[in-house]
């Protein structure tokens, strides 16, 4: 067992974990953060994407011990004081989700994408979320949502 200290969605945790434990199972099974889900076992689908120290990471490819001393934001910690993140709002407004299983990872990946590129073209969004699979939407409304969120966030910055 290894002792880790990790801040998840603004709360500090200290836990003993098996060295082989993946971050996603630590989040789900130990912390009850079941908003983050597992969709595959080869890091292809991105359903488990979280922000680790501010950058998107597939939490099924990160060991819990690697998050020691770090800060994790999951879909459950994205809204602030009950106000949805612009990306969350845009996914709702643009119908960027159907079954919703890929949605937590898709939103977290999009948040990270917009940090790097606040005004992505359609092609840039498609490339930016390439590591996240969705089986329901055909991506069109996801792309729309990410671009709409980008516009909202740019406007927010200007104000």
């Amino acid at each position, binding site marked *: 067992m290894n002792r880790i200290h990790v801040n998840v969605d603004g709360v500090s945790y200290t836990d003993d974990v098996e060295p082989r434990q993946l971050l996603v199972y630590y989040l789900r099974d130990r912390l009850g953060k079941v908003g983050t889900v597992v969709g595959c076992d080869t890091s292809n689908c991105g359903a488990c994407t979280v922000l680790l120290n501010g950058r998107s990471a597939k939490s099924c490819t990160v060991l819990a011990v690697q998050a020691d001393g770090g800060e994790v934001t999951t879909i459950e910690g994205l809204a602030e004081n009950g106000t949805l993140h612009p990306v969350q709002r845009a996914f*709702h407004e643009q119908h960027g989700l159907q079954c919703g299983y890929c949605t937590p990872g898709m939103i977290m990946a999009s948040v990270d994408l917009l940090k790097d590129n606040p005004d992505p073209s359609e092609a840039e969004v498609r490339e930016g979320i390439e590591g996240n699979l969705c089986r329901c939407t055909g991506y069109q409304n996801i792309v729309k949502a990410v671009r709409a969120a980008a516009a909202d966030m740019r406007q927010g910055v200007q104000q």
Partner: protein
Amino acid sequence: MTVTDAVPAAEIGQSRRRKEDARLIVGRTRWTDNITLPGMLHIAILRSPMAHARITSIDVSPALESPNVVAAFSGRDLAAEQGSLPCAWPVTPDMVTPDHPALAVDEVHFSGEAVAVVVARDRASATDALEAIEVEYEQLPVVLDMEEALADGADLVHSDKGTNRSFDWIFDAGEAGTGTSTDEAFANAEVVVKRRFVQQRLIPAFMEPRAVVCDPTGDVLTLWSSTQVPHILRLMLALTTGTPEHQVRVVAPDVGGGFGGKLQVTPEEVITFIVGKRLGRPVKYNESRSESLLAAHHGRDQIQYLEIAATRDGVVQGLKVKLLADMGAYLGLVTPGVPILGAFMFPAIYKMPAYRFECTGVFTTKAWTDAYRGAGRPEATFAIERLMDELAAELGMDPLEIREKNWIKHEEFPYTTVAGLEYDSGNYEAATAKAKELFGYDALRREQQERRDRKDPVQLGIGISTFTEMCGLAPSRVLGSLSYGAGGWENASIRMLPSGKVEVVTGSSPHGQGHETAWSQIVADQLGVPFEDVQVLHGDTAVSPRGLDTYGSRSLAVGGIAVVKAAEKVVQKARKIAAHMLEANEDDLEFTSGAFAVRGTPDAKKTIQEIALATFAAHDLPDGMEPSIDADATYDPDNFSFPHGTHLCAVEIDTETGHVGIRKYACVDDIGNVVNPLIAEGQIHGGLAQGIAQALYEEAIYDSDGNLTTGTFVDYLVPSAMDLPHFDTEHQSTPAPGNPLGVKGVGEAGTIASTPAVVNAVVDALRPFGVNDVRMPCTPERVWRALNERGSDGGDRAAEGSIAYGGAQNAPAAGGA
């Protein structure tokens, strides 16, 4: 006056944002795998590494020595309880149905079949302990190719059955009285075009892997499952395991996609149910993605032999279809029925006097097939739409012109087809004209010619698909005539709460389709209550006791209509109480925007909410009236509905590399009236993605030993956002005459229509090079080979002799590869 006439359609037709999203975008979800119960144990499943083998010995006891392990079972341990997994669709009286144990007992028949389970305190411990189980297999011959499987002396999948043939099912329009003799039509034909097409094997690949939780504590066994069909599952679990039905409750909480892949009674559900029951403790099973791709049912996998007869000027005279449909190793819930549903759709939108359909179900040592988005209809639509292009090429005609010449004109509806279906409504001319404009058809045709003329290495191809489908499964009488084991009705009930809020209970169990939003819109209009005041309950047999669930584009056209019928009953009951409260005659009341008013004195009115409260109090009701305005309705449609559309696809093909890129995709769909355009468009988008994926990317491949070589998302190519184009979608509405909302169905349309549009485009680009078919998926390798090997359709995905060679891809007649 009925409520439908009285209330303006305020909500229906609006792009309401979905209620469901509120929980889904913040991670406040209830996936089955999220459920944790006191003392819960975890199941891991040992799966066969062999495609076909006898289990000569199996010893699970070493697993019990592993840390945290509570129990372990082999198929022999559960043999007395597990029964045989159900097939609800015996398509012929003499259909061969192999025994289908949840946990293999004596033999395994496909790679990935469950052979033993370990139950432990946590998932990791259970998985670790699988390695300790000792199994000895005696290898038996694999059966991978359908054509070879039917030859004399072929190796057998189930030796006790003596054959690999499950059934032969025939529909002959001449014999059925819906058409004339096919033999005569072909004997007299001026032109006959024959083709053999391969529908590759696909995997539904829903994003949420399947999970099951069983709670045996208490008097009723509760099973949570990521299923599309909680109601069917409840009945089937009871029948399969001999548990009294009233002591089983099934819950489908949030379900992360299905696409037919969760329309099943799975071995994993039965195993979890039995293990929970045996141990008396809650247990959970959650599959990995690899397990899901290996052992959840697959779809498609047909070889299609087609012949079409026509006159020289392009009038279709007859169609003959022979299918080999790969059942895989077993018959699942509706496995044999899938190709049979397709039987009725091969004639598609075309008028023809003669039609004959024959289908043979074939066993192979692969995962069993069953419903996958469209279920039989995409296969049929692909075949006929590809064939119409081939006929046009043979006759030197424009592919749109030949379609126009043969399709049903809008003034001819309702139209009874040669397959005996009565198409309710449509306007193929208008949809096609609109699609051509949206697509820029003429300009793209000009560009195509220019590229051909200048021998551009990047060639342009244009593909057309004018499709229809049968939705709204289904009239129970029709299902009965096809020997299906259940009906096709749907149930809904409406509960008026004292505070005026409304609970709607639906038997249609959603997994991403947005029922909560759409049903709220319907009820808001019907009862004149605010959209926000409606709560839709579903997916739990204790809450919604009657239902037949979600598949076959049936939810709105059947389940939505049940909601309308229930609402009409609520209004009927409320009318009596309103009349009593207003001291008026019932006939003098008008119900508008949620209130009853006395005709001529509009100030005298009672709202439905006031009536709900008065009913709850029950202080002063009409004599003899029970104090309830709640209502329940079960709706069984008289006919299917028939959405249609015209899909146009332009592809650019690099003739040097074989790469196919979609340049433009435009479609106009007619799905009748639309309750929520935003949701309907989303369904089209997602459907297109899956249909395009069949055309260009996805294929389940078995090697020559029967191992699935596409068992992860590294190998099984579910497209990403980069792999798909922007879709230009529009709709037109020809209201369905068969139901009060005029709705048809949309869930499968995109998938059914798009595959032939894409492949027709690919072949169109390559036809000047002598290519008349490219096998799906049209990978760069296949396109390149079709271009460079005369007479080839691109052949198998991998070269003969390589590890990925085998299976249906291994057909001897296929091209020159």
